[in-house]
């Protein structure tokens, strides 16, 4: 018992040490872009997760809003209420800083969930297509080809529109977020499926797969336990880059007014609101959410690029 524990601990420790001594960690330490974007992502994610502790107000509680606070400029007291806000307020008197924190939660939640959904779907379909081949492959991959000919934002809008039609109006606000995840996820699975299928085709002719088959392991066990781990690193890279795209897709849908409900604004909704007040000089309603979205998407994207380079020795 204690021997076993010892080995586990020793193994863990050595794994951490192995990680610290790996090329991967070395490359990470030596890349300023990776370090900076990783830090930015961490700060943004943490502030979104702990939004209720950080934000001075809860912008999603309509009863707590005071309309008279509307259009307050950053760091200037409001003409009627004398209250001051770090990043000003929007047209409904919502504190822009708090709304960004809460809105980022929606953006991140939708982005991460949509990518996870697309990833699981893409991996399963890609494995089936690559491993079994035949008509299953034909159907899945032709379907993927057809979907690729449509811009993914169009596919997302289509799915969003159809799903919204099926949702009873009473639950539309609550369901909007889930419908968004479904729409973005369904528009994004193709890339995962193609990469996983490619990797599966390569791996399945290798000896270790043949060996596994010979000892009688079931196809699903071979796919998931043997092939998938060897196909995971490109999937990880795609997932990171897709995350940035999913966050932007959510912002685009919300900007077009078909995403998050106006009473629970995400970053895209905030930018849509701010867009109407650009000419009148209330720049802060658009500026701060846009900067946040830029920082978030850019740093996730840069991290993804770096990850691709680091995980693919052939590119070095």
């Amino acid at each position: 018992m204690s021997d076993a524990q010892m080995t586990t601990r020793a193994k863990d420790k050595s794994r951490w040490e192995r990680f610290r001594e790996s090329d991967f960690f070395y490359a990470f330490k030596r890349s300023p872009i990776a370090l900076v974007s990783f830090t930015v992502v961490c700060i943004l994610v943490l502030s979104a997760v702990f939004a209720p502790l950080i934000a001075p107000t809860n912008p999603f509680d309509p009863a707590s809003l005071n309309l008279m606070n509307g259009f307050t400029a950053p760091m200037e007291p409001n003409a009627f209420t004398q209250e001051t806000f770090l990043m000003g307020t929007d047209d409904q008197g919502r504190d822009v800083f708090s709304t960004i924190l809460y809105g980022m939660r929606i953006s991140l939640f939708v982005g991460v969930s949509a990518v996870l959904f697309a990833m699981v779907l893409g991996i399963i379909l890609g494995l089936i297509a690559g491993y079994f081949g035949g008509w299953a492959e034909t159907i899945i991959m032709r379907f993927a080809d057809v979907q690729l000919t449509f811009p993914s934002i169009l596919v997302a809008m289509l799915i969003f529109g159809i799903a919204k039609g099926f949702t009873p109006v009473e639950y539309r606000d609550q369901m909007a977020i889930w419908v968004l995840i479904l729409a973005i996820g369904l528009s994004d699975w193709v890339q995962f499926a193609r990469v996983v299928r490619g990797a599966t085709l390569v791996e399945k002719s290798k000896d270790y797969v043949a060996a596994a088959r010979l000892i009688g392991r079931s196809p699903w066990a071979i796919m998931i336990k043997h092939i998938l781990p060897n196909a995971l690193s490109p999937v990880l890279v795609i997932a990171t880059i897709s995350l940035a795209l999913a966050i932007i897709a959510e912002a685009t849908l919300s900007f077009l007014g078909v995403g998050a409900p106006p009473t629970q604004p995400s970053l895209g909704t905030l930018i849509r609101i701010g867009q109407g007040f650009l000419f009148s000089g209330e720049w802060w309603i658009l500026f701060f959410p846009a900067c946040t979205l830029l920082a978030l998407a850019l740093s996730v994207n840069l991290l993804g690029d770096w990850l691709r380079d680091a995980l693919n020795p052939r590119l070095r």
Partner: protein
Amino acid sequence: MRTATRAILATTVAMLALPASAETLRWASAGDALTLDPHSQNEGQTHTIRHQMYDALIIRDVTGAFEPSLATDWGPKADDPNVWVFNLRQGVKFHNGNDFTAEDVVFSYNRAKTPTSDMKELINSVVEVRAVDDYTVEMVTDGPNPILPANLTDLFIMDKDWTEENNTVKVQDFEGGEITYATTNVNGTGAYKLVSREPDVKTVMVRNDDYWGRDQFPMAYSDIVHTPIQNAATRVAALLSGEINFLQDVPVQDLERVSSADGLVVKTAPQNRVIFFGMNQGADDLEADNVDGKNPLADVRVRRAMSMAINRDAIKQVVMRGQSQPAGMIAPPFVNGWTAAMDGESKTDLAAAKALMAEAGYGDGFSIRLDCPNDRYINDEGICQAAVGMLGQIGITVNLDAIPKAQHFPKITEGKTDFYMLGWGVPTYDSEYIFNFLVHGREDSIGTWNGTGFDNDELDAKIKSLASNTNLEQRNADIADIWRVVQDEQLYIPIHHQVLNWAMGDNVGIEVDPENQPMIKHATVN
């Protein structure tokens, strides 16, 4: 090569600098006309575009007073109070050269009374229209109707021969998605002729130099190009860049920016339109709330509490940037029957509102859906969002569903909403128009926009009697009585009267019209 370029340039400059009389009005507004068929769709912006090309017997000028148009004068028949006599203008020609006669008036009014027409409510008291001679028309009503002329200002006259030749006698069925010849073609008597029409993209018109009023009106613009631009920021950008020189719907947040720009002026006037919320008090149980087995809106205390929770001054200050007039009744001040006292009856009082909610048994509040248009009224969605916060303060959780007007309005007329926003303009300048549409119980041809489920037979009888009451003093007393009931019932929650803002180049001479219907024939070039 260089000479060729220069020649082309010179020609271009020469073409741009045509005689001074060739002035183009490049006009934009948020929405487009829904159709050009004169008797389909009784909607403000649709009438506005029609008014440039079609004439009615009577129109209103910018002060709201009657202005003779195709009728030169009119009055009740001396020996029969049920008959109105209209003397028509002589020598008027349609755009295709056909003569305008009494036959065309009879034809157009009969067309406006057919089932697919959206104008039939306006002349449902007219039983017969007859031509006495080529230039005299008599209208027979089902009882004396003292305010009939007020109902005729948006009823346009078509050419009988043209309509029959082009097989477009039946009024377009807009809800049924029908498209007819008259939907995109025009043969009116109006000051401008249609050149081309692309719905929701562009409508081009050219001056009718054979117009009967060519010498009477300035008609300074030789061409009109109307472009609908839905996005507020794009609209303002088009104006600032000079792409358009007349903008009907300036977003309130951009008024300062526009009026401080060189070469642009903003003209402001109160609009004949009131914005309010309607509540379904008639149903036993609501679909859109979370209370089972009963209807919280059926309790007048709840309705009053909701009205008290709305801070109209805050909406005016922040959402409308001062460009509205808080309302206490659902009649604009232009309307016969409006009183300053009733218009001041809306008070914000959160403590009293909470007390009323508790008294009605809803101390813990309830939740309900609010249906709201997002492309019809000035900042409609912003007002609804503000209301969500304000009602939240008395415990009512409001889920907002803001959608385009084309989907929102059928919800009201088909009774599929329990809590909704609506705006109402009163082209007849009389309370009867409001009562007919919004207060009378819902029936086939009356009360069609009353989504409250309110139905009071005694009141309905009184409303119906208004049409033929020739004793104006008694009629006004009845109107006041009906308003008293509407107010005490808190049938609606009035929000505000809209204020119109039109922006134009400083050489454009157009005066703001309370109906939001510019008549370009009145425009001058300064």
